[in-house]
Structure formats: structure tokens, C-alpha cells
């Protein structure tokens, strides 16, 4: 792999993570409760919200899609 290609790859990963952080903040402040009623308000304390942030950063395209498409609450 050339240095130029590796540079693009690392920059791409950084951008992906930065966008993921934005989506994670949306989930932290209301997004989680929007797709899952059990996560609304006191149903999900701050420490639990912080714990799901890395996952949202890693899977943010899936979680953005869920914000708009998940109509039914999850099974549990």
C-alpha cells in the first residue's frame, strides 16, 4: 500500500469516526429514546448513555437509518 493510499484510508476512518461522534451525541440527547421507549428519560441513565456512544460511532450509518425507519419498539 502506498503512503498516499494509506493517508486517504486513515483520513477516511477519521471522518467516519467524526460523523459517528455527531450521531452518538444525537443518540445521547434523545435519539435513543426515539427508537426505544425503554431508553427514554430516566429509563436510561447517563452512564448507560455514555456506554452506548462507542457503538453508535462504530455503526452510525445503521443507527441513522434506525432513527428514520424504526417504527415499532424493540422486543425487549
Amino acid at each position: 500500500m502506498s503512503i498516499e493510499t494509506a493517508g486517504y484510508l486513515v483520513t477516511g476512518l477519521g471522518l467516519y469516526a467524526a460523523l459517528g461522534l455527531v450521531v452518538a451525541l444525537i443518540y445521547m440527547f434523545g435519539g435513543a429514546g426515539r427508537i426505544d421507549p425503554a431508553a427514554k428519560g430516566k429509563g436510561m441513565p447517563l452512564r448507560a448513555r455514555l456506554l452506548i456512544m462507542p457503538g453508535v460511532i462504530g455503526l452510525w450509518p445503521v443507527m441513522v437509518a434506525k432513527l428514520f425507519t424504526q417504527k415499532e419498539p424493540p422486543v425487549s
Partner: protein
Amino acid sequence: MSHDYKAVQWTPFKKQFDRWMLAGIALYLISFVGVSAVMQPAGESFTPIQILIRAMGTLAFLLLTFILCIGPLARLTDRFKPFLYNRRHLGVATFLVALIHAGLVILWYHGFGDLNPLVSIFVSNPEYTSLNGFPFEVLGFVALIILFLMAATSHDFWNANLGPGLWKALHMGVYLAYGLLVAHVALGALQFEKDPLYVILLGTGAGTVCLLHITTAIGGVHKVNPASLNGWLKVADLSDMQDGRAKIIRPKQGEAIAVFRDGDKISAVSNVCRHQGGPLGEGKIVDGCITCPWHGFQYRMEDGCSPDPFTEKIATYATHIVHGIVYVDPAPNTPGTYQDPTVITHNNA
């Protein structure tokens, strides 16, 4: 149970388990660093950071190997079930150990040049056709990303919102991560390491994982219970049914069935917990409810419903007893359907 999310669902046992786990990790690291420093061959002078890199790397490999062995071992003996029910914390610990290993590697081997350290990982060994020049760092990097995704989605929120299918598929990535890790070690450290201990460690670890999975996969095929009476599957002799516990039956089609005895009553439900697919038949009756061994989700025996205010439902099955032998109808009722328990009497026992 499911009405709110906690950061960690602590139980006294989980706390004790984590204390033992952290003590074991600390003991391993201290021992490794101490022995490596004392036994260092003449003429070589590894720095403390280099020794710590190896300690973290070998520990991550051993932890992941152990995690992959827990499932098959728990099927072979009940002694490993406590590990099975608490392996989530082991997995997160493994990721953190691997992350420290990667961080130290980036700092020590890639952090002092002109290149961006992360770019350096991808270009320092560019020879894809050579064994000793293969970019093994890339393999480790991809394995670390997989471990990250698994650790980051280990909270209950993820299982509920990704859905059991997608969540399970994502977490099956552990096998890919392990394969990448084996290749990372074989094409990396083993290419210049003279000590045969590392070859033995890698071969024994990977071999044990493969052997245990093959053994239990073959054994699992024979667990299908073919004995039946007019379509009803034989469960066990009544005398073998322990009070408060279950026997698990695996029909040729459909989900496994957990047949419980609670005093003089026999009832059957799906063996699959609605929470994370835990094996209900390996749990026990607590306060009159079937209690999942993984996270304590509960269901009533007679209708498969979680007690109020919870709303989970699992399928129930009809049972009966003939001449002291318990049978179950493999056709499931709709989840939450009331099914009369079979009462043990002098006539049927």
C-alpha cells in the same frame, strides 16, 4: 428486567467474577514482565515497553482463546457455565488489553518517525507476497476493529435495537477476529521470535479452539431426541427430573424445549430467552418463575409470560406423563398461551 437500561447489570457474583478476572490479568502481566526481565537472553536488551507490548499481546490472545473455548466447554461440563454467563465482561477486557497492546505498538514502533503513526502501520511492511515482510500489523488492526465493535455493542440496548439476528451475526465476527489474530502472530512475532514457547502457545491455543468446536458440533448432532410416542417426544424418566430444574429437548425442527419440574407439576416452554437468547433450560425456578441463567429474565411456567410489569412472552408446550415417563408435544403454542401443567399423581408416576 427490560423496562429500563442500567450501565451494568451487577450481581454479587458478577462483581466477584470481575475481581477474580482483574486479579488474574494483573498477576499474568506482573509475572510476564518479571520473568521476561530476569530471563532475557544475553546480548538482548528489551525495554520495559517492548516487554509490556508482548505481555499485552500474549494476554489478548490467551483471553480470546479462552473466550472461544467457554461455549464448547460449557456444553461438555457444568463447571464452565459461570464463565459462559459472564463472558461479556471477559470480552470487553480482551478488547481493552488488545487496545493497550496496539497503543504501545503505535507509540514505540511508529510514533517517532516523520509519518503519521497510523499511516505508518499500513506502509511499514509493504510486501504482501513475502512471509517475513507481510503487513501483519494490518491484520491486527482489522481484528482490533472487530473486537471494538463487539465490545461497543455488548450493552443490552444493542441486542434489543439491532435485533437478535443482526446482533448475533455481528458477534459471530469473533471467529474472523481470532483467525486474523492467529495470522497476525504467525506472520508477525513468529517470524523473528526464536523462543519456541510462542509457537507452542499459538499452536496449542488455535488447536484447542478448533478441536473443542468440532467435538461439540459432532456431539450436538446426537442430542436430537428421536424417541417419541404418537408424535410426543420423550423427555426423561420422572425420577430423573430434578425439582426446580429442566431437561432440554431438541426436536428435529423448531426451537429447543425446556421441560421444567416444580414440585408435583411439569411444564414446558421454549428454551430461548427473549432477552439475549439465553438457555432457559439451564436456569432454575426462582419464586415460582423460570429464571434465565444469563441475566435473570423470568417467565411463568404455565403461560410463558414475564410477571407484571414486564411483557416478554415465550412459547409453551403441552406435556404428559405415561408410566413415569415425561413426554412433550413438539408443536409450540403461541407465545404467552396458558397451558395446564401436568400434575404428578400416583396413577401416572
